[in-house]
């Protein structure tokens, strides 16, 4: 037998015993949370398998905080956060992280903007120092902004304008959400990107980039108490900001079906359907978001789900289908279905087939075995999720950034297990009704591809 051991020196001993203890605890029981005097929140979850850590800084600001005329500003600011401070000029942040073996990037969503560095565990202090610096001292330079505006415009062309399905989704969102801030997506409207000003960015940075609007998450081979000390050292002296009030911007009621067509060069049609539904943050009835989660899983979660079984395999009328629902949004969202018709089948036919599946789940409670399968899958996924330190940090951030407690990672499954087939039927009947439907159809325009050898 050939055996090779790859060994790493580590900073601490007695690890084996610690790991045994961890395994006997519930899945997520070891998140340590701290709040600094200036309001900054720190969450630390230990994972001692490998001497690495992920450091993430989440700001509670995203496209749903934006209003008309400055859409996409959170995302542009995310790009500009790499443009340097007086202490660490442009490029220094990324150069230092790279030099220390780190990998880093950032992301902007509807409800948050996040920055991360995956580093050797001993480098968390460097991450903290750099993040604390750019939380306070970002230089917004006109020339750098002009270039970055072009980069973001190219990003929009790449992700949205030249991607027929993404363009359809953008138009769907603008139709399904009329008055609420999920109307536009994080990338923002092209015209707003073109007319963004440095002064807009300065205001946005000043308003939202403050310790009392930030969450730091560290997952990895670290000591929570030491992380708390480091956080106090680097972030503790940053004064809290005046965040002001965020207006509720509640979505108006849908008064009847909304239906749009998107015509773009494409090969295949595409169908999106959605119904407004509550999330954990907005639900009047606490059980409903969990029942909706089970409903999405029964319809579209995995190869054994109803849509895969009936619409893909039995009827063979679609090549792709999905059902999705995210209960962890800041504001009410859409319960969505999507599908790509198979050749020889129309969008109308597919829409009717999806409607028939909705009617079925409304007419009769789901079976016990379906419910059990969903719970088994979700239970397993909770274990699988712990394989990735980045994903663990992401889960904590996506909850805490919208005002949900990290404990929901554990408790989610407890609530899911309380869902009854009757509750699933009830939410389907209450929310998935014809007058509440928004439909977007991608109608492909012919593409004339020409080859020219030069």
């Amino acid at each position, binding site marked *: *037998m*050939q*055996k*090779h*051991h*790859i*060994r*790493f*020196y*580590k*900073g*601490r*001993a007695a690890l084996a015993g610690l790991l045994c203890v*961890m395994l006997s605890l519930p899945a997520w029981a070891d998140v340590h949370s701290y709040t600094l005097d200036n309001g900054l929140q720190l969450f630390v979850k230990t994972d001692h*398998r*490998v001497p*690495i850590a992920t450091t993430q800084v989440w700001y509670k600001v995203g496209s749903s905080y934006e209003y008309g005329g400055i859409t996409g500003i959170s995302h542009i600011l995310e790009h500009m956060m790499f443009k340097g401070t007086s202490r660490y000029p*442009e*490029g220094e942040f*990324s150069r230092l992280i*790279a*030099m*220390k*073996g*780190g*990998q*880093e990037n950032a992301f902007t969503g509807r409800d948050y903007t996040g920055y991360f560095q995956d580093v*050797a565990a*001993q480098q968390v202090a460097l991450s903290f120092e750099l993040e604390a610096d750019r939380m306070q001292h970002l230089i917004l330079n006109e020339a750098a902004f002009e*270039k*970055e505006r072009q*980069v973001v415009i*190219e990003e929009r062309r*790449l992700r949205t*304008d*030249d991607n027929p399905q993404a363009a359809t989704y953008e138009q769907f969102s603008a139709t399904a959400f009329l008055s609420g801030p999920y109307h536009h997506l994080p990338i923002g409207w092209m015209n707003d990107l073109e007319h963004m000003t440095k002064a807009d960015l300065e205001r946005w940075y000043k308003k939202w980039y403050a310790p009392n609007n930030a969450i730091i998450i560290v997952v990895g081979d670290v000591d929570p108490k030491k992380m708390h000390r480091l956080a106090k050292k680097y972030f503790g002296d940053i004064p809290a900001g005046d965040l002001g009030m965020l207006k509720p911007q509640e979505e108006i009621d849908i008064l009847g079906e909304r239906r749009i067509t998107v015509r773009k060069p494409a*090969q*295949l049609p595409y169908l999106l359907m959605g119904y407004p539904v509550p999330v954990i943050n907005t639900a009047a009835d606490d059980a409903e978001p969990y029942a909706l989660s089970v409903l999405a899983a029964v319809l579209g979660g995995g*190869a*054994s789900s109803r849509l*895969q*079984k009936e619409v893909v*395999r039995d009827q*063979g009328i679609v*090549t792709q289908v999905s059902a999705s629902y995210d209960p962890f949004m800041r504001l009410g969202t859409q319960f969505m279905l999507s599908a790509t018709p*198979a*050749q020889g089948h129309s969008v109308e036919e597919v829409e009717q087939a999806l409607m028939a599946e909705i009617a079925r789940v409304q007419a009769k409670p789901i079976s016990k075995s379906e419910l059990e399968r969903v719970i*088994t*899958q979700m239970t397993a*996924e909770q*274990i*699988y999720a712990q*394989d*990735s330190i980045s994903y663990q940090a992401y889960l904590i951030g996506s909850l805490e950034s919208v005002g949900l407690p990290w404990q929901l990672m554990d408790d989610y499954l407890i609530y899911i297990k309380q869902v009854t087939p009757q509750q699933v039927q009830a939410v389907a009947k209450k929310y998935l009704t014809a007058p509440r439907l928004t439909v977007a159809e991608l109608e*492909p325009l012919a*593409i004339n*591809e*020409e080859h*020219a*050898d030069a």
Partner: protein
Amino acid sequence: MRKTIVTIIIVVAIAAVLLFLKAALQSNNDNKTDALFEVAIEHWVTKKGAQVYFAQVPELPMVDIQVVFDAGAARDGNQNGLALLTNSMLSEGTAKLNADQIAEQFENVGAVFSQQVGRDMAILSLRSLTTRRQLEPALTLFAEVMSGPAFPPRAFSREQGRQLAAIAREQERPGSIANKHFYQALYGEHPYAHSVLGDTPTVEALTPDDLAAFHSQYYVGSNAVVAVVGDLTERQAKKIADTLMGSLPAGKPAAPLPDVIGNVEESLLQIQYPATQTHVLVGLPTIAQGDPDYFPLYVGNHILGGGALVSKLFNEVREQRGLAYSVYSSLSPMQQAGPFMMGLQTRADQAPEALAVLQDTLAQFTLEGPTEDELAMAKSNLIGSFPLRLGSNQAIVNQLALIGFFDLPLDYLVTFTDNIDAVSADDIQAAFNKVIVPERLQVIQVGDIAAQG
């Protein structure tokens, strides 16, 4: 050495080796040496000839298994798309079970079964919890699906239709159109030339019998690598490998792929497509896995355009000029010479300028090589980030599968950082001059070519 009844272990005559990776964390100042992280990789060959790689990682009660066959699209022959359709049909029915039952039985025990095909590899993966009542049914089903597909005609027609739809979708994104033409330009008549999805006429012509023949030739023990990572003992891992491989005939390993000749002349292919951006790809075939030039090219590519936010191309194209959101270079050694690729997307009228920046940056790099500072930075990043490559069970199982499939030395991960550290600026310059020959670069542009004026 433990003997089991069902498996004959071929003992490779090297004693257990313990190597210390000081280099991996050399960038840490407060490095102490009183505890260790280690991954022990064990390797053996089953009596069916399958190569098995196992790492025990006990912290989470789960296991990741990958079975990799030399049955990628390069094995399609002239039936482009055959390898992919064969692979995707495995979960669509066996003699005993239909697709619904297969899906339900995996998901009833919380297992995740997935299938994947590249040009070299066809991969079947299973992620499962390690409690016996969950793992055992998942493994039994895995073995049955892998070894006994029935290719039922109705499911075949449906999956064929889905693959045809995927080909159509490949043709509605400028990026995937460019990619398809890139491989055609680089590989000409070589089996790497065509897309994994295949082409509409070749996929339309496939029959269930074609798939059955492909399966019985390539899904065999001696053509397989098994990688297992998770909370299992060595004995359990052996039993898993035996369960999986025991269901297959030994068969024969796939024949070596032909050498890549490659285009000897540079060329430019422009494809008119209605889009706001033009996608630009530049590249050529380079080296196979295990090539002695690998490490100089790998480090050199990292400096040129492999690093995510720190590279010469990122700086020239995005930071300095704001021409593109995504700009990169990649080096992908395969069983035979894999591609070097530089890519970006930019507003149609800027495509000529962006292409010139790509070409100039490469030319200058090939001419001058990296500066000492650039080299030190790259080494520091690649060596310091090495533990991230083993940062999850998923990452470890991927590494083991690569080592096994490409027959890399078992100490590949142990020596990796030393190999990086040994690369000099001269090595990089020499390897780039030898392999990345500017006169052989193939250029693909897809977009509104007319707008370039």
